[in-house]
């Protein structure tokens, strides 16, 4: 991970900068969504963009998720590069038909005639005491949709490079941010625009005894866990797939071939979640190298409770990863 000069931004700032630079570069980039203009977005990610680019390019909408995604699709067919914002991932199911049954099938069902350079940005709010209807993370659903790409950045550096990469991609991309990271993580971000291509995992930390594949917020927990483990003499490699579809299976599999052990970690519910796909991928690619069963560190199979202490218990932390690793070495 080459980061250039050491300018430190938050994750939210990094995304904003990526959006702004692409808008400066390319007139066809247009934002639309609820309260993204004067309000600056529920998380202030688009703050200042209305002022800079005006209401034709930063378009507030009524509360109409179907139409937000649908209109963005139509605009994309006609050659714009819309970036639609769905305020919470919990609201995305309202527009899932548009994203999955329309956008993701369009290139295929048109026999290759259409091109859908669409980005749908959203975020998940687990960890903010927002309860069962405002905290959900559903990446696995969208991994299961060929024709769609799915991006889940974990660091400011990746967030900027990946939002630029997503906008430049000619396919529908679901870009899932993590709300507790917006102002909860900072990191070096080069000022000039740079693109991280979709489909390339990043080894966030090298190690030799166990591979931890972690998604979004859990990347940070995995890195903390790796430090803990190091103290105990266990060397953990931490891999962030960064994009879930396309999934960089090779990087993951190669790592497990090296370490012989794997923990997979993400914030969605365990059954049918992204960790299931990661585990299945590892078994397929590195079965003969595995010295222990793969352990999934995922959210429990229950809705998300509001009460902060309960939500805290519900969530998975570095210690859960440490425990998982200790159970297998």
């Amino acid at each position, binding site marked *: 991970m080459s980061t250039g000069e050491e300018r430190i931004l938050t994750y939210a700032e990094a995304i904003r900068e990526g959006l702004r630079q692409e808008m400066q570069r390319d007139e066809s980039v247009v934002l639309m969504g609820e309260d993204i203009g004067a309000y600056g977005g529920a998380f202030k990610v688009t703050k200042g963009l209305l002022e800079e680019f005006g209401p034709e390019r930063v378009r507030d909408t009524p509360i*109409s998720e179907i139409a937000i995604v649908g209109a963005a699709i139509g605009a994309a067919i006609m050659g714009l590069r819309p970036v639609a914002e769905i305020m919470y991932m919990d609201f995305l199911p*309202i527009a899932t038909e548009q994203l999955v049954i329309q956008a993701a099938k369009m290139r295929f069902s048109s026999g290759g005639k259409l091109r859908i350079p669409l980005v749908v940005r959203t975020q998940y709010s687990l960890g903010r005491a927002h309860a069962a209807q405002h905290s959900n993370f559903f990446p696995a659903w969208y991994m299961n949709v060929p024709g769609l790409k799915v991006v889940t950045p974990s660091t400011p550096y990746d967030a900027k490079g990946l939002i630029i990469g997503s906008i430049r991609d000619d396919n529908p991309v679901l870009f899932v941010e993590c709300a507790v990271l917006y102002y909860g993580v900072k990191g070096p971000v080069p000022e000039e625009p740079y693109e991280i291509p979709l489909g390339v995992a990043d080894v966030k930390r090298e190690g030799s005894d166990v591979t931890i594949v972690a998604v979004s917020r859990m990347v940070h927990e995995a890195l903390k866990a790796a430090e803990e483990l190091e103290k105990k003499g266990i060397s953990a490699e931490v891999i962030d797939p960064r994009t879930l579809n396309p999934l960089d299976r090779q990087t993951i599999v190669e790592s497990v071939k090296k370490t012989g052990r794997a923990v997979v970690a993400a914030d969605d519910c365990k059954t049918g979640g992204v960790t299931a796909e990661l585990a299945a991928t590892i078994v397929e690619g590195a079965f003969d190298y595995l010295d222990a069963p793969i352990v999934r560190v995922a959210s429990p199979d229950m809705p998300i409770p509001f009460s902060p202490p*309960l939500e805290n218990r519900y969530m998975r932390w570095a210690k859960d990863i440490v425990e998982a690793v200790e159970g297998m070495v």
Partner: protein
Amino acid sequence: MAKLEIEIEEIGEVSVQEALSLGLTEGDLLRMYRKLVELRLFENRVEQLYLYEARIQGTAHLYTGEEAIAVGVARAIEGFGYIVSHHRGHGHALAMGIPPKEVMAELFGKETGVVKGLGGSMHVAIDPKRGALWASAIVGSGIPIAAGAALALRYRGERGVVVGFFSDGAANTGAFHEGLNLASFWKLPVIFACENNQWGMSMPARKSITCGRVAYRAAAYGMPGVIADGNDVLSVYKATKEAADRALRGEGPTLIEFITYRLKGHGVYDKATYRPKGEVEEWEKKDPLPRFEQKLIEAGITTEDRLKEVREEVAKEIEEAVKFAEESEVLEFDKLWEVVYA
């Protein structure tokens, strides 16, 4: 050129005298006043707890300024009515008779909360035995659910009505359209109660409602549309009662647009800088509480002193609710498994 004429009934301010003729007693009016105060002081206290005491986490959408709607509706459907609430539901919960301490404990995330601390601010108005069926934090989604609850009433031939609450922003969702159409299609005993508080987050209702008035949309579903003064608890009562009567007679749903105003920001942390200057002040003049106080006093039903006593009593109750919430315990995590499935 075909002309379609849509009649939208407008129900303006209702006098005490008219209210009494509609079947309310003086005692009812005083109880309604007390409820208004309860809703207002509750929200005032909640705002404090969030902003200045930082004792509650997550978010809360205050009902301040809109109290007349919940209180008027709840009174009009008392004994046979159900509601479906939404993200701005503290007022709905209290108006339906959920004790303030249960609502407060919910905000604190405690086991003694109305839904055991699992729902928080956006799910406080859930208590089926008091008629509060569900509270959806997803804008618009409660609307077809309200219709479905009304279907059950109709199917079983029960005397009852369901009120689906929502605000202006929700009238732009697909769920609104499909829910109202289906309710009309089946002539269900449901009242679609739009609390038009002029804003959906930072989006002004006058822009997002492209036909100008939510109530006009009733015409798209062949149902009566009504506009009432949402800052006059008696106007609310009258409009709701008429719609409830219609529903009970088997004549199907009504869409009522209650004109009101969100006196605070969207959520407790929103400073609402997007609002035009002077707007809040204009609406403060129409604040439902002083308006009702004045009416009651002018009608000779009560006195300023008596009302002050009420306010003090209620304030004490709210303080007790805070204490109760504070002292309650959080549910044991393992107990959560008991409520994932029935």
